Every structure is written in structure tokens, then in C-alpha cells.
């Protein structure tokens, strides 16, 4: 198991290679990428920032929970920080398991938990030159 916040380009194939073992019959690779339109606005890039100490801890806790729940140590998660262009990978999750159902479930639970509780924020850059924090209008308590 390995988790990291990175400032370099994510290499999804490298993550997949890390979890590949003969004991596993299934590997699931999820890659989140920067999309060109959000809420109807043309996006040109996204700047990712984090409360880094806490984000690193939460990311590790999420992977550890998934490892315990699904009984596999073959989990690697990287989340990118910094300014990303369209199509660049912001997050990649590789999970391998003897069985596909568990690999899919673990992968899904990890991305959903990341979105729910890892303190990372997106500043979207738009085609018209403006910038806005994503979700900033919804200050609801967790």
C-alpha cells in the first residue's frame, strides 16, 4: 500500500505495475482527469491546493481502511497538486485483488472517500480569464 501527494505528472501505468502480483486476478485503475467544462463554463486548467499534512494523513487512512475492508495490500493512490492543464491526471488509484468485485469496490470507495474528506481544493481557471474555487458556495458542515 502506498499513498502520496505529488507535484509531478502522475504515471498511471506505473501505479498499475506497482500492484501487479501473481496472486491477483484483477486490477482496477481509476484516473481522474481535468475536464474542459464544469457547470457550463469553459475550463482551461485547475490549480490544486491542499492542507498538505492533513491531506496526506487522510489519504493514507482511506487507503488503509480500504485495504482492511477488502483484504488487500495492493493499493496505490497518488493525488496531484499544482496547476494542471486539460486532460492531465489529478488522481490515480490502482487496486489489485484476487477477485474483480473486491477490486472494483475498493477503487470506488477510495475515490468517493477522497471527494468526501481529503482537504484538497480546486481553483478553476476559465477561458474568460476568471478563476473560482470549486464548491466554495456550499459551506455546509460535514
Amino acid at each position, binding site marked *: 500500500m502506498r499513498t502520496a501527494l505529488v507535484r509531478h505528472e502522475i504515471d498511471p501505468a506505473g501505479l498499475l505495475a506497482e500492484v501487479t502480483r501473481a496472486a491477483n486476478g484483477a486490477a482496477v485503475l481509476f484516473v*481522474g482527469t481535468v475536464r474542459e467544462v464544469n457547470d457550463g463554463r469553459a475550463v482551461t486548467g485547475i490549480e*490544486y*491546493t*491542499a*492542507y498538505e*499534512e*492533513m*491531506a496526506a*494523513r487522510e489519504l493514507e487512512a482511506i487507503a488503509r481502511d480500504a485495504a482492511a475492508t477488502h483484504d488487500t495490500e495492493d493499493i496505490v493512490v497518488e*493525488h496531484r497538486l499544482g496547476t494542471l492543464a486539460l486532460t492531465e491526471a*489529478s*488522481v490515480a488509484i490502482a487496486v489489485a485483488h484476487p477477485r474483480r468485485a473486491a477490486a472494483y469496490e475498493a477503487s470506488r470507495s477510495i*475515490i468517493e472517500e*477522497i*471527494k*468526501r*474528506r*481529503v*482537504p*484538497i*481544493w*480546486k*481553483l478553476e481557471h476559465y477561458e474568460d480569464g476568471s478563476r473560482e*474555487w*470549486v*464548491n*466554495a458556495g*456550499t*459551506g*455546509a*458542515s*460535514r
Partner: protein
Amino acid sequence: MEVTVLLFASYADALGCSSTTVTLPPGATAGDALSAIRRMPGAERLPVAPMLAVNEEYARPGHALSSGDRLAVIPPVAGG
């Protein structure tokens, strides 16, 4: 006692800083630290009940603080 308050993303923009120090009486809670922050200019842009973390762990407003703690006011997260 002194507590460091950390602000991020839209909250840092609203208050014009990413960290500050507040002085609180012994026994003060995370909520008390937040109340101190609410007296700063721009704090009217904070929501009624923002998420809080103490020393890198999510915490409730009633969480008792110790001198030197780091209280983070966490905007809605948007990772992934």
C-alpha cells in the same frame, strides 16, 4: 494560551491570510477559536458551521484546545 488558526482556499481569500494566531483563555474550544476569527474583517463570508480540524484531524466545535494547537477551518473539499 495561543492557538494557530489555519485558513485555506476560499476562506484564506475571504480573510486575506492563510494563518493567524489567537489568544484564548484556558479551556477554550475549537468553537471559541472560530468565534475569535469571526471578528476579523472578511469573516462574514465564512459559513455558519464550517468544518474544523485540530492538529490535522476533523474535530467538533466543542473540542477542547491546548496551547500550541493548530486549528484549521476547512472549506468544502474538492479533491479528486
